[in-house]
C-alpha cells in the first residue's frame, strides 16, 4: 500500500512504534467516546421510558458501581472490537496509530480482547513503553503486539523495524 496519502514529513515515521504521548492522547479520546456512548445510552433509555409512560416518568437512577461496571465493559468491548476489526479505535484514528500483531497483520479477536482487558484494568502498564527502543507497553510485551504510526485509512501489511543493537 502506497504512502501517497500521507504527508511527506510524516512518511519516515509510518510503521514505527508509537510513543507515550500519542498513545495516551488516543486513550483519552477513546475514553471520551465511551463516555459519550454511555450518555447517549442513558438518554435513550430515559427517552424510551418517557414515551412509554410520560405521567410517571422520572430519570433512572444508576448506582456508581453499576455505571462504572457498564462503562468499563463498554470500554473493553469497544477497544477489542475496534482493534480486531481495523486495528484502530477512534482515538487511534485521530492520532494516526494502529495496533498490529507481531508480524504486522491484524490482531486476533482473543488477543484484542485480552489486550483491551489489560489496558483497562492496568493502564499504568503503558508506561513501560518509555523503556526500550521498540516502545512496548505491558500488553505489547505479554501478547506480542505493537502500536505503530499509520496514517493510512486501510489496514496495511506493516513490517516492524528490527530492534537496533
Amino acid at each position: 500500500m502506497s504512502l501517497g496519502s500521507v504527508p511527506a514529513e510524516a512518511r519516515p515515521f509510518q510503521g514505527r512504534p508509537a510513543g507515550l504521548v500519542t498513545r495516551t492522547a488516543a486513550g483519552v479520546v477513546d475514553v471520551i467516546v465511551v463516555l459519550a456512548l454511555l450518555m447517549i445510552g442513558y438518554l435513550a433509555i430515559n427517552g424510551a421510558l418517557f414515551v412509554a409512560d410520560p405521567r410517571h416518568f422520572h430519570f433512572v437512577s444508576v448506582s456508581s458501581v453499576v455505571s462504572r461496571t457498564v462503562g468499563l465493559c463498554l470500554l473493553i468491548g469497544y477497544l477489542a472490537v475496534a482493534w480486531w476489526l481495523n486495528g484502530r479505535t477512534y482515538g487511534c484514528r485521530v492520532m494516526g496509530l494502529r495496533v498490529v500483531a507481531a508480524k504486522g497483520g491484524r490482531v486476533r479477536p482473543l488477543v484484542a480482547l485480552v489486550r483491551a482487558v489489560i489496558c483497562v484494568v492496568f493502564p499504568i502498564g503503558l508506561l513501560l513503553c518509555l523503556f526500550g527502543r521498540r516502545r512496548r507497553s505491558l500488553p505489547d510485551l505479554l501478547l506480542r503486539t505493537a502500536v505503530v504510526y499509520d496514517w493510512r485509512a486501510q489496514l496495511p501489511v506493516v513490517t516492524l523495524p528490527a530492534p537496533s543493537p
Partner: protein
Amino acid sequence: MDTAEASGPEPGSAAHRGPVFALDVVIGASTLVVARTVAAGRGAKQAVATALQAPGAVPGHVAGHVPGRDRVDSWVSELARRGEREQDELKDRVTSLADDLVRAVLHLVLDRIDLTETVRQYVDVNSIVQDVDLDAVIGQLDVAGLAEGVIAEVDIAEIIRQSTGSLTSETVQSVRMQGISGDEAIDKATGRIRVRFRRKHAPTAARPEP
C-alpha cells in the same frame, strides 16, 4: 314497375354503389373535363392524347364511341377512381394549408400577448389546484423508484469518503505531528536519563574487587 323495384339495381353496378360513389364520379368527370378543356385551350394535340391515355383517364376506346353496358360501368368506375384520388389530394392540401394557417395565427397571437399574465388575470389557479386530487397524483408516482434514482445519482460512497477524509485535514495532521514530536521528545529525555544512569553505575560495576 313492380318487377323493376323487386329486382333493384344489379350488385356492382354504378347505381348500386351509393351517393359517395356518385359524388366521386361527378368529381372525376369534372376534373377530366377541366383537364381536357385546358389541354384543348392550349392547342396541344399531343397533350390531349396524353390526358386521354394517362393512368386514371378515360380509356380511348371508351371515350371514342358509344359503349355497351359493361363499358359504361368501366367508364363510370374509372371516373369514380379519378374523383376519389382528386378528393384525397384536395383533403391533403386543405389539411396542410389549415395546419400552416393555424400555426401562423397561433404564433402571431402568442407574440402579441403575455400568456402568463393573461392566465394570471383570467384563470383562478388556486381553485384549479384545490380541485386537484393530489393524493391520487402522488399515488400514481413511483416514489420509491424516484428515491432509488436520486440515491443512485448521488455518490454516497464519495460523500462518505470525503467526510471521513476530512479527518486527515490540516488540523488533524498537525495534532498527529505534534504527537510524534512529543514522543520523540520523551524518547530523548528518557535516553539522556538512561545514559546518566549507566555512567553513574558503570564505574561501580567496573571497579575491581580488592
